[in-house]
Every structure is written in structure tokens, then in C-alpha cells.
């Protein structure tokens, strides 16, 4: 039985919809960044070790963004962590298992407390 507060459900639907849109909007440009970096790494013009190192940094950074986007896409339920100045942030490093949800009830989240996943049950 779904015991979730209607506002929680609304917020989660909105969050999932934002995650889906972000996924699309980020992955398309990432395809270009990674594809062109790969092309430059294959190009003898970029054989200079310093240039290659910088291209590798671009590639690895793009992969990190990709990883975050995948985590965002697989977010089945918001998991919060406490960020700087007590602001609650979505924690993308944790598995989205309700059993490991971080309690982050205090501090300037822009939404009301109804949206605190740690309070749902």
C-alpha cells in the first residue's frame, strides 16, 4: 500500500522528470565531448605528451559527469546528504536503498519538510 504523502509523491515525480530531462540534455553534449576527445587522441597532431595528458583529463572528467548522470538516472528515491552550510543535497554517491538514507532534516532545503525522504516512514 502506498502510504506516501501526496506532496511527497508529487515532488518525487517532479524530481524523476527533471532527472530524465537532465539525462538527455547532458548525455548528448557528452557524446560530442567524448567522441571528439577520442578523435584528437587518435590524431598524430596531438602526440605531444602534455597535450595527450590534458585530453585524458577532459576524457576522465567527462566520464565522471557520465557516471553522475547514470546515478541520477537510476535514482529511484531521493537520498540526501548534508552539504556546505547545512544545505541538503541529493547524494548521488550512495545506493538508493531506503535503509541507507541519510537523515538530513535540518538546514535550508528550498522545499518544505514534506519532501524529506527520511520522514516518510
Amino acid at each position: 500500500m502506498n502510504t506516501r504523502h501526496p506532496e511527497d509523491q508529487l515532488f518525487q515525480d517532479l524530481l524523476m522528470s527533471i532527472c530524465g530531462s537532465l539525462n538527455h540534455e547532458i548525455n548528448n553534449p557528452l557524446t560530442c565531448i567524448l567522441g571528439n576527445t577520442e578523435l584528437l587522441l587518435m590524431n598524430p597532431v596531438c602526440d605531444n605528451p602534455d597535450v595527450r595528458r590534458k585530453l585524458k583529463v577532459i576524457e576522465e572528467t567527462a566520464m565522471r559527469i557520465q557516471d553522475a548522470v547514470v546515478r541520477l538516472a537510476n535514482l529511484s528515491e531521493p537520498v540526501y546528504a548534508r552539504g556546505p552550510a547545512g544545505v541538503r543535497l541529493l547524494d548521488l554517491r550512495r545506493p538508493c536503498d531506503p535503509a541507507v538514507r541519510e537523515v538530513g532534516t535540518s538546514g535550508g532545503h528550498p522545499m518544505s519538510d514534506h519532501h524529506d525522504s527520511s520522514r516518510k516512514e
Partner: protein
Amino acid sequence: MEAIKVLLVDDEQDIVETIKYSLELRGFEVDVAYDGLSGLEKARANSYSIMILDVMLPGKNGYEVSRLLKEDMENGAEPMGIILVTARKLDNELREEFVSTWSKADACIYKPFEMEDLTEKMVSLLEAVEA
């Protein structure tokens, strides 16, 4: 040896240029289209071994284009492997099921991908089509 002909359909010009150039470097002959309908028309009017088809396209989406072309093939059109490309990675299992059932596409790859992964899928698809 004759180059393998590929039809690449995506509405983002930068992506088309990047993938086209990468595939040409690997010896493929690449034709392009920028929307679902012109992709469908090109695929019907020409002979390609593989189609790389974005899902979110203006006109007709990739699922529809794939289904229509696969139905053509069931009615005797020349076989062609179809790889769907999508940027959204939500509901993976559902999507995989949808790809293999409703859209009838042969494979699916998620953006961003490494060209190596795409070419591996293309090669295994070519082997399957030829078998």
C-alpha cells in the same frame, strides 16, 4: 574490399559529424539524415548494412522508424541491422524489452558511448545478418 554502408540518423549536427568522422576513419561509408522521416526514406531508397538510429527525432521517432523498416524486411526488403541510440538511461530493463519487441531493433546503445563499443555492436550485428 567494398566499404560497409551505414545510415546514421540523429538531429544533432555535432553528434552526426563526430560519429560520421569516427566511423569513416574506421573504414565505414556513412550516409546521414537529420530526422525520422528522411531517415526512413533514405533507408527505403538505398541499400545499407546498418542503420544507427537516434530515438528522439523530429518527425518520426526512432522506435517508429525501426518498426516500419523491420516490417518492410519481414515483407521481403533487404536485411539491415538497426542500432537504436538513446541519451536517456531510465528504466533500462523496460527499454531493452521495448527495443527488442515493439521497435524490433537489433540493439541499443546509450549516449555517451565509446566508438569502440558502437563498432563492436556493428560488427556483431553484421556477422548475425550475414549468418
